[in-house]
């Protein structure tokens, strides 16, 4: 069984054409992440990114945002199996076309004070911010769509010695779009 194919939407350098975003509310208990990761591993479901944080300032629950590969298994299977985990409280499936997705990128670029003009252009174009600076390096931050983060990452490829970290995305449904359980 395959899920209905969807048009190219929201694909980025790091996520395929057919990804889906699962926003999963879980009990904030030891081992919950291992249960989710173990389930994906043993059932052969692929994860593209995963972000975890306490949910709604409530210590009892956490929100896990999982970008799943809907090619590796039908979404119905992934959601059905995930829902069987006792610590999983709610699953919101957000289709990329209905999603507001954002990701945080941090990058430190080694560059002398004298050679920063083009870098400053790149930073300005991307809408990134400089958050730290010394004589030999600059650290920038970008909170943007995954595609926007991809663009900055590509723009920085010409620099040597870039240390770049991305958080994986979080997402909410666009206003007026109903997410499905």
């Amino acid at each position, binding site marked *: *069984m395959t899920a209905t194919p969807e048009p190219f939407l929201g694909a980025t350098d790091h996520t395929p054409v057919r990804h889906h975003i699962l926003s999963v509310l*879980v*009990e904030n208990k*030891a*081992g919950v992440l*291992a*249960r989710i990761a*173990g*389930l994906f591993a*043993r059932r052969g479901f692929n994860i593209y990114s995963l972000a975890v944080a306490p949910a709604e300032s409530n210590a009892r629950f956490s929100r896990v945002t999982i970008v799943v590969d809907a090619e590796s298994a*039908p979404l*119905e*299977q992934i959601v*059905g*199996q995930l*829902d*069987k*985990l*006792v*610590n*999983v*409280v*709610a699953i919101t499936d957000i289709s990329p076309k209905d999603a507001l997705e954002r990701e945080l990128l941090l990058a430190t670029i080694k560059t002398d004070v004298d050679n920063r003009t083009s870098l400053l252009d790149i930073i300005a174009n991307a809408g990134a911010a400089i958050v730290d600076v010394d004589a030999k390096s600059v650290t920038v931050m970008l909170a943007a769509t995954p595609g926007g983060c991809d663009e900055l990452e590509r723009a920085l490829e010409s620099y040597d010695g870039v240390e770049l970290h991305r958080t994986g995305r979080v997402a909410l449904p666009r206003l007026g779009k109903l997410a499905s359980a």
Partner: protein
Amino acid sequence: MQLTGAQALIKSLEQQGVDTIFGLPGGAILPVYDPLIDSSIRHILVRHEQGAGHMAEGYALATGRPGVAMVTSGPGATNIVTPIANAHMDSTPLVIVTGQVASSAIGTDAFQECDITGITMGITKHNFLVKSAQEIPRAVAAAFHLATTGRPGPVLIDIPKDVAQSMMDWWYPSSIEEYDLPGYRPEVELDDDAVMRAVALIGESERPVLYVGGGTLKSHAAAELLAFAERTKMPVVTTLMARGAFPDSHEQHLGMPGMHGTYSAVTAIQKSDLLISLGARFDDRVTGKIPAFAPNAKVIHVDIDRAEFNKVRHAEVAIQSNVAAALRAFDGYGATPRNLDVWWKEIRGWREQYPLVYDAPTDEGPLRPQHVIEAIAAKSGAGTIVASGVGQHQMWASQFWKFEEPGTWVNSGGAGTMGFGVPSAIGAKVGRPDRTVWCIDGDGCFQMTAQELVTARSEGIPIKVAILNNAYLGMVRQWQEMFYEERYSEVYLSADLPDYVKWAESMGCVGLRATNLKEMHEVIDEANKINDVPVVIDFRTDASEKVFPMVASGASNDDIMVHPLQRGASR
């Protein structure tokens, strides 16, 4: 009232109505074994922790109540991993209590430490590491709730030694809300729209088959199934996990589907226009080659677990429900197929042409294993419970024993765990002491868990074990004969080593042997007269006997191989 965590655990188990624990003590679980002395709960001291797990499974399968096992940390816990995996595959309700090293020692590679909650994450429905004595009642209540509701399964509770030793104020959860399971909602509302669509599909069908799986037994739906089947006149097949859900003696019952199913059950499914799956999961041993499985059938899939829908086979209608409720709803709407006379005429033709057969027994032996099973069945009263290991003997037991009611067939389905027979038979007998319990075993399986007959003898659990001794790992031998050009690799076991009669006697059981027909009848009669100690019979059977019909692994069900006696006539 102040109790130790250990006392609270035992009291919580009593609160759940537990009458029996299968277990074996050790360092980390020691504190819990002390209050057990003063408890009304019967403890069965096993000889190996695997035995405890399979006994708990046998108990659960025979009674429908959750089986309980208790073992220590480290190797005690890992020894019960196989039964946990087995119960997970077969959706058998178990509660397993494991001791754990003291909280302060967790993560330090302490003596007999192992991460059993990590190990069993993928093979339990859920597990708990209990961090304070005060939480024990909640963990126990939640474990039984999880194990027995929705799709049942094994739940493990891991209790560090210091938690068992520390004090708590006794309490017990009085409602499900107090179980603290915000993500667990086993109750589902029947989708009326889906039911209506199912009723419409049934109304259009001319060649329906009721494909009955283990979920039918788990949801205690045998009565609803019988009523629905008789009203609609539909043919019924029962999977390996569902044997006993519908009487084998019933005219509408075609038997077991799948790799070693009856010709009529397999073929009826293949030719059907509608498959009504009731708590079954389209296992590869039933479907054979999936694209060729029931190619013209629409599917109504009833299951309590929605993750089963469209996992293997697309369902035209999926109904998340327990089987009993769905069948009542179908009946409520008067779901009725078209006239099935033509369909039945065809099915009867298959049934008459290809019944289950085997070569005629000879007076002098070796014995035909199928004949031994039929002889035991003929000499056993109604309601006899049959347990089995895994392999040829299991298939023959499923084929040739006639199951008439739920809870009479105890076996390892999904996991295929050799050695399941003896301990699960013991567990079944503990749960149903009023019933005769026969274990139909193979010589390979018997050697894996036979030590539990010491348990059976010392605890006064008089089961009867029939070893179909063909001196081989028979099912593997059959595959090597048929698919590996008779190159027999590492399957010979010897009929005489061990000496099963002496072994049985050394374990305090009665040991008997039969090599020819006369002896076969004599030893079965003798075994049936013994009701105080376990009996083990070494039946010397023909190693060349193979299980038929057979659908080769990965082949289409259309290419079913019938018994050699039935070949030649075109089918």
